[in-house]
């Protein structure tokens, strides 16, 4: 019994010590993390926790307000957070948001917008957004936009939408830079680029620069693309018709000459329909010639019906308009051809 009491008191002391030890452990202000949690929580997910979570989608306006608020606080990549898979947006919502972001170009880094637009599933609306982005971007930062389109896959790059819109900026860049880029284009791509450069000749860049590019671009008219020659015909019809008539007369390539005539005749014909039709009559390709003249006569009928009907009922050569087409047009007005 005499040993029992010291044993009991010693056990009590040990228990007391353990109690104090345990309480010290609980009160530790920096609790140690379990090794497992370190392994399960690597650095990137931890960073993710620090990024703000976008509110659930209710409307484009609300999401845009959130993006602006975040950007005011320095979170310049906020827009991209809206498109993360966990945000759970439908395609329609994604397109609506992307459209608004592209429209709000001035607030964003174009590379962020590009990542968003390219992240959308490929569809017509996404393509239109891409073209819209390229158009604005190339006007604000031609070299940046060029670096972006250079990295596009060939099937997306060699399109009218991309290259025509990019031309708004490309026409201002040094010719050698644009030609180096053009080396990666297909025949159609070069044709699109030529079309874009000519289309903007009277608005941006300098014709000296654009013509230096065009001279070495080796672009030819392509069936899916509005040709550079046609644009040139339209431009010069307005600002220097004599020069255009000289170019037409000097052109030996029949396809190019026909394209020049299409553009030139259309604009001339808006002010002088008979002269426009005569010029169209010089187009060598019969199908193109008839299409152009038919289009022209329709335009005339909807702007000055009396004069156009009078011409149609007159002695119109078969080479200009087929009898069948003439009969069809007159029939639209309840009239019959005289012959």
């Amino acid at each position, binding site marked *: 019994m005499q040993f029992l009491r010291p044993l009991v008191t010693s056990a009590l002391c040990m228990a007391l010590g353990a109690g104090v030890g345990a309480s010290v452990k609980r009160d530790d202000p920096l609790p140690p993390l379990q090794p497992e949690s370190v392994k399960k929580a690597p650095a990137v997910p931890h960073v993710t926790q620090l990024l703000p979570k976008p509110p659930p989608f209710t409307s484009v306006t609300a999401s845009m307000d959130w993006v602006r608020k975040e950007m005011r606080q320095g979170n310049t990549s906020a827009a991209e957070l809206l498109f993360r898979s966990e945000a759970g947006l439908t395609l329609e919502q994604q397109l609506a948001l992307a459209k608004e972001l592209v429209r709000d170009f001035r607030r964003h880094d174009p590379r962020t917008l590009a990542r968003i637009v390219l992240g959308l599933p490929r569809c017509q609306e996404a393509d239109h957004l891409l073209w819209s982005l390229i158009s604005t971007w190339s006007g604000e930062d031609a070299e940046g936009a060029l670096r972006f389109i250079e990295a596009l896959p060939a099937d997306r790059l060699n399109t009218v939408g991309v290259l025509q819109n990019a031309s708004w900026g490309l026409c201002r860049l040094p010719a050698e830079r644009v030609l180096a880029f053009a080396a990666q284009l297909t025949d159609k791509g070069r044709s699109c680029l030529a079309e874009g450069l000519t289309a903007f000749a009277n608005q941006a860049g300098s014709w000296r620069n654009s013509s230096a590019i065009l001279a070495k671009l080796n672009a030819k008219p392509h069936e899916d693309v509005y040709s550079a020659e046609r644009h040139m015909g339209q*431009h010069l019809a307005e600002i220097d018709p004599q020069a255009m008539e000289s170019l037409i007369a000097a052109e030996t390539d029949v396809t190019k000459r026909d394209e020049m005539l299409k553009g030139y005749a259309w604009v001339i014909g808006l002010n002088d329909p008979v002269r426009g039709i005569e010029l169209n009559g010089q187009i060598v390709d019969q199908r193109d010639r008839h299409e152009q003249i038919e289009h022209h006569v329709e335009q005339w009928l909807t702007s000055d019906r009396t004069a156009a009907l009078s011409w149609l009922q007159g002695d119109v050569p078969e080479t200009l308009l087929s009898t069948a087409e003439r009969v069809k047009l007159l029939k639209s007005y309840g009239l019959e051809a005289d012959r």
Partner: protein
Amino acid sequence: MKLMLQMLLHALCLFVGFWLASEKTFEPSEKAAVATQQPKSKISIEVQAFQPPPKASSEAGLALLTYENWAEAILPISQMRLEELPAMLRGLLRNPFPEVRRRLLRCLFERWAALDLNGALIALRGLSSPLLKERALWAVLDLWTKSDTEAAWKWVNALEDDSVLQETGIEHLLSLAADKDPLASAAWADQIDDVFLREKALIQIAHSWMSNDANGALAALTNVEPKRLRDYLLSKVCHRDGVDHAAGLEIVSQLPTQAERSKLSEEWLSAYVNDHPQDAIQWLLDHSNRPELQKSADAVGGYLGATMKNFAQLQSYAQQLPSGPIRDAFAARAANEWASAGRSLAEAEQLLALCGPCLERDRARSTIESKRSPK
């Protein structure tokens, strides 16, 4: 002695108990690993996140400005010393937002040109982006022309190795001159050999004139030379705020050819109906005896068909027009737009019934048919 031993024993038990219970608090190896991994990274991120941003007026600060706060740099830039500007330019060129770069570049080059014109000219020619070079040049020219326009022209004319910059310089100088005397600037521009540069210059002059005084440009139209400038002004001034559309349409009605009158009346009535629909339709009703208004009637009918809610009123407008090309164009296009907007197809048909046979009616009928539900 026994008491001492008992006390030592109890103290030892107390310590053993404490050590056993709190053993992991002092475990060395794992704690070291934890300390070097997660808490450290967390702290470093937080430190990064809450570091005060660099001042907007520093090189690093300019690189970080966004559209939301770019204006904070305007005042500091306008007070900077010359030797600080190159660093500011470096910072600005690193900024990822084109809009911020463009806006602040202007402030920076205004300051630079004020302190050291030649230095500013050398700096702007060193920029690689054509757009930024253009904006910097505009800022410099705005200041330079206040003291020595001739020297500015001379410098721009000498830019033969950069035709894009040279042309934007010429256009800008002409635009500035047009603020004082648009016709003199236009006469000068008309002498330019390069037809595309001439066209761009005339357009710049036209925009400058219309922005400063749209109704003044309209009033001067009959005497404007060259014709290309007159044509451009005639086709665009109708879209400017506060312009007198009825007066413009009167000028258009005096043009020599039917084709010109037709094309420009359409432009003017499109702008008129967009701004003042009631006045525009009334104008059309009052002048519906003019054959050149066929295309204009189409435009007005299209606008009203797409925007009016009151079908009876729309139908009444069509009925008030004389039968023939103008009424046909108006009613057919109104029917087309009425159907396209998803309104009653029966009502669209009623409008179409006011048309005689014509291409416009064929097109409207095609639209109406395409809107019918498949059976």
